[in-house]
């Protein structure tokens, strides 16, 4: 297998852009119509993902120490889509046909055997990881919604009972599928540390025009069913660290941090914890009541709410918003920076990409080493 030759070949084919993945899926479905049902109706997102993944794989084909963990994760991820070993040769055949079609005269027997070898290896790594994972974990968890609490017109808190224990570390997320949007898997973070009854909470915020979040926020009620994939994510508590903890949450980015907070609270001697919770407006602070209760009960916890789009209240309007005291005004990252220094802390940041980016920037500027900051970003459309 000649890595250089593969890279050059992929680069040549990838120049044709979306047409490549379009051809690949059409070829796959013409040959195997029964596979069409496994994919969503609208496929443009899926085509992007496939090309990106292939590009990533090919670019790392001579660096197996990086590539193998990626493929193993991909293989495990494919279990929830219902993919099994017998599907892989079909995909391989269509991939080869696609590469041949777009390579034109550049296609040679050597190239064909290179690609065959590469695909065989990739499939093997993915399948082995999937098989190993199958020994300990189901392909997916069925869940039943046991409670829905609408906190705002566009934010709901859902409580879900999985059909069997869902082992996860606080701060992690699962991909979730609702029956009315089949094949549209979206990630949501568990908002609580594991409970004896195994129920998990999700904080979902509606993204305008999104396929899944509007259904979860406004169209879901107790008794509804969902499916969940295996937990993923690295926004987890560094248990070995003796340092104090800084949590910075934008909107529903609160979910994983609340789970971490709960985990910390179970320690015999909790560290000092500062939780910053920001939103555009006051009613975006959908979980403040609960956080305030926690802060009252835990002397080691400080909760700082912040809003960015509402000026500080004066006169009659502040009268109307009773209980406003303690709410800071300004961008969350600035509010956090004002309250520093944080250089003795481990920081955990979650929310919209822009907010996370600014916060990390500010924190590193203030002397927090980058490797003490763990983060997760949600959909960019979140506001």
């Amino acid at each position, binding site marked *: 297998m000649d890595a250089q030759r593969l890279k050059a070949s992929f680069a040549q084919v990838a120049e044709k852009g979306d047409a490549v993945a379009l051809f690949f899926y*059409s070829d796959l479905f013409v040959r195997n119509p029964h596979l069409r049902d496994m994919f969503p*109706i609208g*496929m443009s997102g899926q085509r992007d993902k496939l090309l990106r993944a292939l590009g990533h794989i090919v670019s790392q084909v001579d660096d197996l120490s990086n590539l193998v963990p990626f493929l193993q994760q991909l293989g495990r991820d494919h279990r929830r889509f219902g993919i099994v070993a017998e599907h892989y040769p079909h995909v391989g055949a269509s991939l080869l046909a696609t590469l041949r079609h777009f390579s034109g005269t550049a296609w040679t027997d050597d190239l064909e055997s290179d690609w065959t070898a590469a695909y065989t290896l990739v499939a093997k790594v993915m399948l082995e990881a999937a098989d190993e994972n199958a020994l300990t974990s189901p392909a997916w968890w069925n869940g039943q919604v046991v409670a829905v609490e609408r906190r705002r017109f566009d934010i709901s808190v859902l409580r879900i009972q999985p059909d069997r224990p869902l082992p996860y570390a606080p701060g992690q997320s699962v991909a979730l599928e609702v029956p009315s949007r089949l094949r549209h898997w979206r990630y949501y973070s568990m908002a609580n540390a594991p409970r004896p009854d195994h129920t998990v909470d999700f904080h979902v915020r*509606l993204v*305008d*025009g*999104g396929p899944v979040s509007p*259904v979860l926020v406004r*169209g879901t009620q107790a008794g509804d069913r969902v499916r969940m994939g295996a937990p993923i994510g690295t926004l987890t508590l560094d248990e070995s660290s003796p340092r104090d903890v800084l949590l910075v949450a934008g909107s529903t980015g609160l979910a994983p941090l609340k789970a971490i907070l709960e985990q910390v609270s179970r320690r015999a001697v909790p560290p000092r914890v500062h939780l910053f919770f920001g939103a555009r407006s006051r009613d975006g602070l959908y979980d403040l009541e609960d956080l305030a209760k926690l802060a009252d009960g835990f002397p080691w916890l400080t909760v700082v709410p912040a809003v960015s789009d509402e000026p500080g209240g004066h006169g009659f309007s502040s009268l109307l918003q009773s209980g406003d005291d303690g709410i800071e005004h300004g961008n969350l990252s600035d509010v956090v920076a004002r309250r520093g220094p944080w250089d003795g802390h481990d920081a955990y940041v979650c929310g919209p990409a822009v907010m996370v980016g600014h916060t990390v920037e500010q924190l590193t500027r203030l002397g927090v080493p980058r490797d003490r900051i763990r983060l997760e970003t949600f959909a960019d459309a979140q506001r």
Partner: protein
Amino acid sequence: MNSPNLPVVSEGSRLTPGELHSVVFARAALGRRGYDEEQVRNFLQYVERELVKIFTDKAALADEVNRLRSQASSGSRGVMAPEDAHFQAVRILSQAQQTADLYVADAERYTRELAHEARLHREAILSDAKGRAEQMLEDAHRKAAAVAEAAVRTAPPQAAPAPRPENLPDADRLALEREIAYLRTYSDVYRTHLRSYLEALLRNVDEWESSERASLPGGNA
């Protein structure tokens, strides 16, 4: 175009472009209602063109059938190489997929725009409500101040039923009584305003909720 009564063509025989061309309509008598000559002529030209097209198509199809028949019977290449058939199928499926993607994208953009507008609308309603509430407060405040002022000026100090701050100096007591009268009136006026406003708001919300429930997937109703 109204369909004119065509001249009788003998049953069974086919109408040809040539026949149609030579058809002559009887003229309507002078002063009577009759066919519009111009319209009839236009229509005939139209039918003639259509017939020419149909005849040419038919001839081409007959040729094609003959060609394919002889090809098939001569046992040479199939009608279409399986390879070509596969690529055609792939192309057709690709086009269908792109169309589907387009529809999905359009629908998502449309709902996004709708939702965005609704969000703006909601924000406008909220800020309007806030503005009104503020105005009401100020209004109530002004009225109450005026009423309290009047009450203190006209009524003797004893009229105030509040626990009497006996050993306060007169000026202080007067100020305190004025304050009490003010607060009473203020709260009365404000409460009335607020109640009617909230009731209107609630009616709004009820309508909103019921129309929303009706529009949810699955109806839930």
